[in-house]
């Protein structure tokens, strides 16, 4: 019979799993009781190992096996059949694969920059002869201002002064940086060389630079102003076209200051309208007190010397001077190089050079220079030609007069930065416009219609003799009738104004009323004695103007200020005024903007409500329609809010009366 002997390990760790079993080799029929259990076995270790692996012992299976007389018992006496099976243990020969990770081949490109504050020019060489003295410039003790004889020979130079401002609030700047609101200098698209582009990309954010240097400023610049500085800094051709009141002057001066201090430029020329020269000098004192500034003025010999002086970092000249001084700044030395050259020329109110064939434009373009910037809130006043004119200075040939507005907009995108107050001064109270459409009184209508009919007839009779001046005279006459009827004194606008003023008088607020004519202002004043009006126009002597403003600000009895458009000049801040009335409209909305912004600017106490009077079905409405069309053109080019800065052209003035402008008509 067949039975099994089971083996179990002596240790009990694997007792439940017998490691192996063996078949009894006895071939006689014996019961289990008759079988002798084998002796315990020890599994031996493989060759080379001495210790036994484990010891096993047999154990008894306690059950009985009975034999029956069935005829099968004989079969039990036969030997067990043993079958063998051959197993091939050896496999195929192993193959060895060698994996060599190796070192990656690494190519490195290297760029080296000048160290310290002597930041390299993008050409790779320092523009400043004093570049080696970068750290000294940092401390404000070296540089052109300290050149021998510098101050003693230049009486018109603003002397570098001890700091009078407050240090830039480093904590504020660093907080902006930590909040991820830092302003980096991004290379303009026209910088091609990778090295030059990386040079700008690797500069620290402006906040970092300002905080490090502890520059003095009257106040910590607004983020959008730093954006403007970061825009100007790397550019060789740029237009900063911010809306008026956002601080183009400050942004330009700060960019110039940084360029001077890091040695990228050393000679800067600023050109502005003559009335703004003193303003620019004042602004430099305010925003860059350590930078010496010279105003080019005086007798020709003196001016020649001033033009050729090389030790002054910033010179200011006015537009009117340039055509006269062209021979001074275009003179060549023995080697044929210009005697006078600048690293940077900045044009303020650059729309002055929109006429490419004008003497001013030609003179400006003749100045030898490396960088050209233009500052203007009105890059397009009349047509796209204005922009082409400015670009002839910035980058000659870059724009052509036949370019469509949309293409023009995309082409200049990298060169122009324009922001409006609505975009950047989110804390500024709103400016609300009310267009008051006024219907003339019957008396006014009668006078108006007669004047227009007669005027147009007279213009037609002039034929080829007609000039823009003739048309202007008629426009002015009609506009004046829209204000007051010269025959009866009737005025629909005055009636409306009186009603509005009564309302705001109850609230204790003050108002400014603008007109382009002093006579109109005086007439308004005569009719509103209860508001104790004050006057601020061209006939008020300059020395009295400040007193007028002081009284208007401080004396609650003076409720209205009657102001002419022309007198609302730069630096006049009337933030305490909440109401502005435009009694008549100026030719160019830029001037209106300037007027409105006397009240609506940083520091304004509340919303500014601007009421624009417009006599319907009159010349005023026709002018307004043309100006609206120009706003649309501006929007197409700059994709921004309408700037309202588009003056009438000669052709458009003629078209007001369905007249054709003659070729010989003189400019307005």
């Amino acid at each position, binding site marked *: 019979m067949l039975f099994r002997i089971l083996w179990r390990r002596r240790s009990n760790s694997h007792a439940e799993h017998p490691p192996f079993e063996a078949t009894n080799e006895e071939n006689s029929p014996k019961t289990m009781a008759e079988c002798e259990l084998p002796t315990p076995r020890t599994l031996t270790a493989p060759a080379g190992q001495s210790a036994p692996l484990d010891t096993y012992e047999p154990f008894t299976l306690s059950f009985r096996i009975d034999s029956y007389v069935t005829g099968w018992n004989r079969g039990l006496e036969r030997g067990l059949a043993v079958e063998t099976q051959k197993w091939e243990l050896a496999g195929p020969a192993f193959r060895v694969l060698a994996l060599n990770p190796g070192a990656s081949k690494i190519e*490195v490109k*290297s760029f080296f920059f000048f160290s310290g*504050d002597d930041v390299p020019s993008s050409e790779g060489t320092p523009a400043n002869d004093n570049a080696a003295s970068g750290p000294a410039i940092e401390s404000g003790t070296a540089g052109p201002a300290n050149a021998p004889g510098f101050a003693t020979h230049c009486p018109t130079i603003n002397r570098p002064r001890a700091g009078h401002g407050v240090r830039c609030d480093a904590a504020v700047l660093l907080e902006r940086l930590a909040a991820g609101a830092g302003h980096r200098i991004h290379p303009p698209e026209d910088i091609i060389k990778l090295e030059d582009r990386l040079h700008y990309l690797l500069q620290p954010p402006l906040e970092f*630079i300002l905080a*490090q240097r502890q520059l003095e400023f009257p106040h910590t610049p607004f983020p959008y102003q730093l954006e403007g500085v970061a825009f100007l800094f790397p550019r060789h051709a740029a237009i900063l076209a911010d809306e008026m009141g956002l601080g183009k002057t400050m942004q330009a001066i700060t960019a110039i200051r940084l360029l001077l201090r890091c040695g990228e430029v050393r000679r800067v020329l600023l050109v502005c309208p003559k009335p703004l020269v003193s303003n620019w000098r004042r602004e430099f004192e305010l925003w860059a007190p350590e930078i010496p500034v010279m105003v080019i003025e005086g007798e020709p010999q003196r001016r020649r010397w001033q033009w050729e002086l090389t030790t002054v970092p910033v010179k200011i000249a006015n537009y009117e001077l340039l055509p006269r001084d062209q021979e001074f700044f275009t003179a060549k030395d023995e080697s044929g190089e210009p005697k006078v050259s600048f690293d940077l020329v900045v044009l303020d109110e650059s729309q002055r050079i929109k006429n490419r064939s004008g003497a001013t434009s030609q003179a400006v373009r003749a100045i030898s220079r490396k960088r050209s910037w233009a500052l203007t809130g009105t890059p397009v006043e009349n047509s796209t030609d204005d922009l082409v004119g400015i670009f002839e200075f910035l980058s000659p040939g870059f724009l052509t007069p036949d370019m469509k507005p949309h293409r023009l907009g995309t082409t200049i995108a990298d060169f122009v930065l324009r922001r409006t107050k609505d975009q950047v001064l989110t804390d500024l109270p709103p400016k609300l416009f009310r267009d008051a459409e006024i219907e003339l009184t019957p008396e006014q209508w009668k006078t108006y219609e007669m004047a227009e009919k007669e005027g147009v007839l007279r213009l037609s009779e002039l034929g080829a003799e007609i000039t823009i001046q003739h048309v202007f005279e008629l426009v002015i006459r009609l506009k004046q009738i829209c204000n007051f009827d010269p025959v009866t004194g009737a005025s629909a606008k005055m009636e409306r104004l009186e009603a509005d003023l009564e309302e705001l008088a109850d609230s204790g607020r003050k108002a400014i009323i603008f007109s382009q004519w002093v006579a109109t202002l005086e007439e308004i004043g005569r009719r509103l004695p209860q508001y104790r009006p004050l006057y601020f126009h061209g006939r008020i002597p300059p020395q009295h103007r400040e007193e007028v403003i002081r009284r208007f600000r401080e004396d609650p009895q003076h409720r209205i200020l009657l102001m002419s458009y022309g007198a609302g000049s730069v630096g006049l801040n009337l933030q305490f005024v909440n109401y502005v009335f435009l009694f008549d409209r100026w030719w160019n909305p830029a001037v209106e903007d300037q007027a409105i912004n006397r009240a609506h600017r940083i520091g304004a106490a509340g919303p500014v409500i601007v009421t624009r009077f417009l006599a319907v079905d009159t010349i005023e409405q026709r002018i307004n329609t043309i100006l609206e069309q120009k706003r649309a053109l501006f929007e197409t080019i700059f994709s921004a809010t309408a700037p309202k800065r588009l003056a009438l052209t000669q052709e458009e003035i003629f078209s007001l009366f369905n007249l054709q402008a003659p070729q010989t008509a003189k400019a307005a």
Partner: protein
Amino acid sequence: MKQQDNVGTRLSLRLGFFTAIPLADGGYVGGYLILNGVGRPIEFHCTTPVRPTRAQEILYGPTLKPYLLGEQMAPALIAKAKSPAEIILVTEWEALTLCQVVEQPVALVLSPETSAAVEPGSAQSAASATWNHSVNGPRSPGAAILECGALPACRTLQMGRNTLLVPEWPVERVTRVQEYLSPWAEAFDLLEPFGRIRAALEEALRRG
């Protein structure tokens, strides 16, 4: 005068910043920026795209990135520098292996998120937090690297608003590093220059 001295000291200081940006195909480009103590760039070195071989991927497994960044790219870039940096800062934990290759002190600048999760002075906490905030997520290869000991034991070092993860240096070295970094780190964000490197690398890639 003292201010000038400070400025002079800062101008002569050299700080190295290394980082790498991943490419879509699995490779990397690395950049090494050397700044002076007032944050101006002195040198910039960048690699062409470096792509690991299949053999490297297999053999290095989870340690591939530390190998590429810390043992291949960063040393190659640093070798090109003319102005040796007194200290090298990195922003990927994988690049900390660089400290076993170069002589200069190497420190990892922790992001604010990671810093917030670190218990001051706790090496284990710093390491865990770093791994857990690594780009690959928690229990990513970083954990395996930590367990297999490929990176040195680290501790945190607080410098102003910045938290650094540094190897267990001798006290003298820690003091020296603190002296070097204090003009910067007390006031400025040491992560900022890495943004410049990334912008420069992207520009270099764009311009070919």
